[in-house]
């Protein structure tokens, strides 16, 4: 009995991975084959990018501030409080900026994509679209995935900048350190590979959150309860995948750059 359950679960996981791979690959290829729905791409960019700006700014400032608070306390024990700026900027740009932005945006948008598309599936709107001769993958999925990639790139830059500014604010106002020194350290120790690493990650994370959100939305079954289930699965899977893929990318990039 237990073996049957394990067998069935394993088969389900393999099938899901296979379905996702085909789905995500086809959705990506569609961006390079007409028709391309530019209006939908721009609309989704607005929803994902502009709509997520406030949470990204707030989380960026808070994270930078917390980093400055925590690191200054530890670094001053070794007489190295002056390198707070370097610590905050490197951590934000290489790691926390992309990952936190990815998770925040996936919490907001992967869930919204899964619930929106899921509702369309259970009310037969997706079938209606197919019956009207329009490919839902091209019309609904591809614009969302590419808008996620495109906007997450810029949102990460905003988060990085806000994090460094937030860290600067805490350094000057709460830690009573020199602001010029903080920003000098933050800027001077930045290297090309750090920036490459920080800007490459959101491309992967955007793809993950867009494709996972749409994938779970499009395979919704079981009415409104199913929509809720898809939404949860989308957010959880996207967040876990972002953290896992971050580890892989960091490992690969560190190997390349060192």
């Amino acid at each position, binding site marked *: 009995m237990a073996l049957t359950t394990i067998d069935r679960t394993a088969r389900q996981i393999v099938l899901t991975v296979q379905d996702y791979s085909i789905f995500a690959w086809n959705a990506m290829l569609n961006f390079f084959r007409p028709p391309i729905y530019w209006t939908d791409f721009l609309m989704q960019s607005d929803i994902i990018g502009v709509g997520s700006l406030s949470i990204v700014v707030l989380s960026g400032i808070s994270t930078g501030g917390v980093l400055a608070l925590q690191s200054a306390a530890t670094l001053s024990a070794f007489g190295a409080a002056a390198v707070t700026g370097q610590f905050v900027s490197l951590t934000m740009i290489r790691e926390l900026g992309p990952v936190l932005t990815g998770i925040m945006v996936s919490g907001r948008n992967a869930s919204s994509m899964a619930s929106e598309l899921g509702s*369309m599936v259970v*009310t*037969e*709107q997706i*079938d*209606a*679209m*197919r*019956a*009207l*001769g*329009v*490919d839902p993958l091209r*019309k609904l999925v591809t614009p969302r995935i590419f808008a996620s990639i495109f906007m997450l790139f810029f949102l990460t830059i905003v988060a990085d900048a806000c994090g460094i500014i937030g860290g600067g604010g805490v350094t000057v106002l709460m830690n009573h350190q020199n602001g010029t020194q903080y920003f000098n350290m933050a800027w001077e120790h930045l290297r090309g590979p750090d920036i490459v690493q920080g800007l490459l990650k959101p491309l992967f994370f955007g793809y993950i959150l867009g494709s996972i959100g749409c994938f779970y939305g499009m395979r919704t079954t079981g009415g409104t309860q199913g929509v809720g289930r898809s939404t949860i699965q989308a957010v959880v899977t996207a967040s876990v995948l972002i953290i896992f893929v971050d580890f892989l990318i960091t490992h690969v990039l560190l190997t390349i750059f060192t």
Partner: protein
Amino acid sequence: MDDVPSILIASEPLHETVPVVELRHAGIAFDGPPVLIDVSFKVSPGETRILLGPAGVGKSVLLKLINGLLLPDTGSVLLFGEEINVMTEEELFPLRARTGMVFQEGALFDSLTVRDNVAYQLIQDNKIPDEQIDARVHEALRFVGLEHTFALFPASLSGGMRRRVAIARALIDNPDLLLYDSPTGGLDPITSTNIIELIIKQRDVHRTPSLLVTHRLQDAFTLCTHRFDPEKNAMVPLPKGTTDPNTTFLMLEEGRLIFNGSLHDLLHSENPFVREFLE
């Protein structure tokens, strides 16, 4: 039902040979027992076929097989003479664009206005200027008597109005085949009659072949015993003792096609399930 006499011919049946739809031993199963088993029938040009059967017997699934929204596990489905179960999703889109489908609950896009819903296909094709699209939407909405809903959203329409908008959406591009999935299900008798009148109007004015799924015998018999009168702009009963010869019946029981024939054959069927269903 007893009012329906033995059948005489109201107009000449159409004699065209290439079927618009043909199912050959089609079957499909999901997780569990098969939903459809060895189903074979045809829809000829100008013909209206009414698919009867109790709820959950596979009627909607059958309709989705016809335009390739689902693919059969066994047998084959031919749409406009092309075998669709060997086609890719992309190859199916042009065929689907020639088919109008009215879904059970309307399946209108709730984020779009009635105008954008009805014109969806035309907007996506991007070949017609906006003024022409508006004119065609007005025409389609006039056909279903809902011109005033042009700028409204589906959420502000009643269930019956949504079905009529769905019919307008299915008709706007003059389809070569119409598929109606329980268009009167869950509606009050007056609204149901209005919708059946629209279906008769489309059948008699444009001669569009169609397949209508329903479990309501009253709707099925109304379709068979009425015609559309363009002068009165309403449906009128056919002379007593006559029915539309191009409107025929199919019946499903537990996934199998157990009846395929005219109203006369249906009423005189010896099949116990058919008898029970009719009674």
